[in-house]
């Protein structure tokens, strides 16, 4: 499984810009789709869910999700995300990408069944490598990744 599509959800435009650029550096072939709030990201995903024939390329294989956002926080995003079809959910890995290092936030993320890992900002190429390259190799070994 190769990563060719990453969805970014963050209310901070600068962070979105930085993350996009980092992903570009990591692998220029990876497509990114950015959303500045959880709701619009969710409606996009719901739309994908409705379409029977989806080109697999448009489905993101990874979502990088910020926690602290107005209207819908990262954790609330998971509540809605659960409503999507199992087929779709199985194809997507959701990672938290946050500046918070609070043990509480990490614990909350750990308790979220659909959360695949926790990355602290700022995103770097190295972090992305350890996240994506390894996730291909040892997906079964490590159900939750914490990358500081």
């Amino acid at each position: 499984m190769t990563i060719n599509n990453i969805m970014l959800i963050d209310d901070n435009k600068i962070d979105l810009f930085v993350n996009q650029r980092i992903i570009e550096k990591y692998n220029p072939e990876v497509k990114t789709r950015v959303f500045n709030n959880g709701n619009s990201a969710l409606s996009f995903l719901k739309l994908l869910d409705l379409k029977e024939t989806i080109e697999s390329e448009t489905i993101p294989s990874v979502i990088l999700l910020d926690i602290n956002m107005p209207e819908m926080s990262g954790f609330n995003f998971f509540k809605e995300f659960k409503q999507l079809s199992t087929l779709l959910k199985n194809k997507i890995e959701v990672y938290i990408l946050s500046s918070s290092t609070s043990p509480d936030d990490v614990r909350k993320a750990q308790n979220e069944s659909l959360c695949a890992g926790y990355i602290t900002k700022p995103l770097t190429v190295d972090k992305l490598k350890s996240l994506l390259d390894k996730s291909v190799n040892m997906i079964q070994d490590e159900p939750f990744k914490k990358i500081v």
Partner: protein
Amino acid sequence: MLKETATSVLGTQDKVLLASLKSHFLIVISNTCGKLIYCNDNFSQLIGLPNDSITGQTKQLLNSVINYKTIFYNLWRTLLTGKEWSGILFHKSTNNKAYSLNATVTPVHNDQGEVVKYTTICKDISNYYSKFKDSAPQFCEKGFWQDNYIKNILYLNVQGEIINASDRSLKKSESRIVGCSVFDFVNPINHDFVRAQIHKVFNKGKKAEFQSLGLSAKGNQRLYVSKINPVYNLNEEIIYATLKTVKQKTKPNTKLKAIETKYSNISQSINVGILVVTNSVGNIIEWNKGAELAFGYSNAEIIGAPLTILISKKHSETGVKELLKAKEQLDKYVCRENIELLGLRKNGEEFPLEFAVSHWRNGKEKFYCAFMLDISKRKALEAKLKKTSKDLELFLYRSAHDLKAPLTSAEGLLHLLKEEKLNKRVSLIVNMLDQTLEKGRLLLDDLAFASIISEKRRDIAIVDFQKILGSTMIGLKGIKNFESVAFHIAIEQETDFYFNRDLIDSILQNLIHNALRFAKPKTVAFIPTINILINVTNQDVNMSVTDNGLGLKENHIDKVFDLYFRVSNEESNGAGLGLYIVKRITDDFNGETRVESKFNKGTTFSVCLPNLKESTGNDN
């Protein structure tokens, strides 16, 4: 009435007989309640009051003198069965003269057979009666007696009767003291005590004494001390006792009285403090104005009531337990901290009280004094303070947390900048900027952590030191000096240790990071070392981190735990928060931190924390 009846029943020639009866006897008629409705002149003379002021009053004759309760009881029992009673009555007149009266009391029935009144016919036999019977009490004028009382030795028999006096004037005077009972001159409250003292003299042959208060000729209150000594005959039997009374020196007495007045006034006038005095079984016998104001009961309502009436019903079980515990400890002469409990006002309102108890003895009786303070205001302030400090902690946490977001964004941008082609000068500046940003981020992390230390108390679990230390070391891997330092780690753990894992992690991380920061560079002859010792017992854990690094100057040792303290700008890149956090944690959990250091030789930090086995999770 009697006159009328007599006239109609008797013939005129019998009027002479009636007149002679009236002049020789005392005649009294009373109603069923004992009120006088008629008396003749002889009676009013004896009483010493005019005829019309006696009528309507309770019969003085039947108003028993304390010593003659049995007679009084016997009399009324006979009368209530409707029978006639005859016997000797004793009477003390208003001028303190004693009379013995041979009396016959007859119930008078109406047509239906109900008793409507009593007639009493008496003969004054005082003049010869006392000659036959020793126990007939004599009375003397009080003032006269008091003056002579202290000059003389009195002789007492076992009943406390005065059988002789050393001064002839006392014996001979018209109102003789001989024949009186000593109890007539003692406050009835103290009768039991004086009786016991006399008993002691006669039955055990010991000396005894008692004190009494009296008024001097000038009207000042005086304290008298009476000493009783046994007197033996040749067969070593106690035949009588001597009673010698001396006046207590006036000066200390007035002083004492002044002090007494002063303190009683003080206790009464304290409005803020609540003073309640109870006897040994916990019934209230005295309280002050403050108590009355606080609880809302009137004096009459509260005196004699149990102390528990003042304690909230909700709280009464634990409250009473606390009180009993306090009492027990007082009885053992152990000092005790103040108790806090909920008081209950008369109107049902509850309010918090702080409670201190003391006690004293007076003879055999024990008294307890509860000093209370209404702490409603303090409690409210405490709650407010708690809330405010919690809000502040939360505010600090949120601020530190939120400030981090822009910093990390800047860091991200900086990483992108580094990837661009930069000339040397710009790249130098970018690196400096990077360091600055990281420092700020670490500082905010520490701040956020320091603000939630108190919160961590809720989350107590078994601590696996091996595991925590392992992850701590991994976290420190990127730190400068880490690779060059040799670590020696020893963990001794016999039993489970309960604490908050994040806090243990933070302590270890800060101490080791600190040791790394001040490590000396590695050379051929010198290997920088850090020794980590962890020793767990049932009660506590001792963790120590020892390095052979730069060490601290003596004048810095006291300050290392202070907020934002840094030894110097060049050598350390810490924010000055690490050791402060360690100190905060140990203080919060009543632990202990120690530091020993020799300049240029090395430093040892030791932390001792309690094992929170018992209070798992429910410490709030």
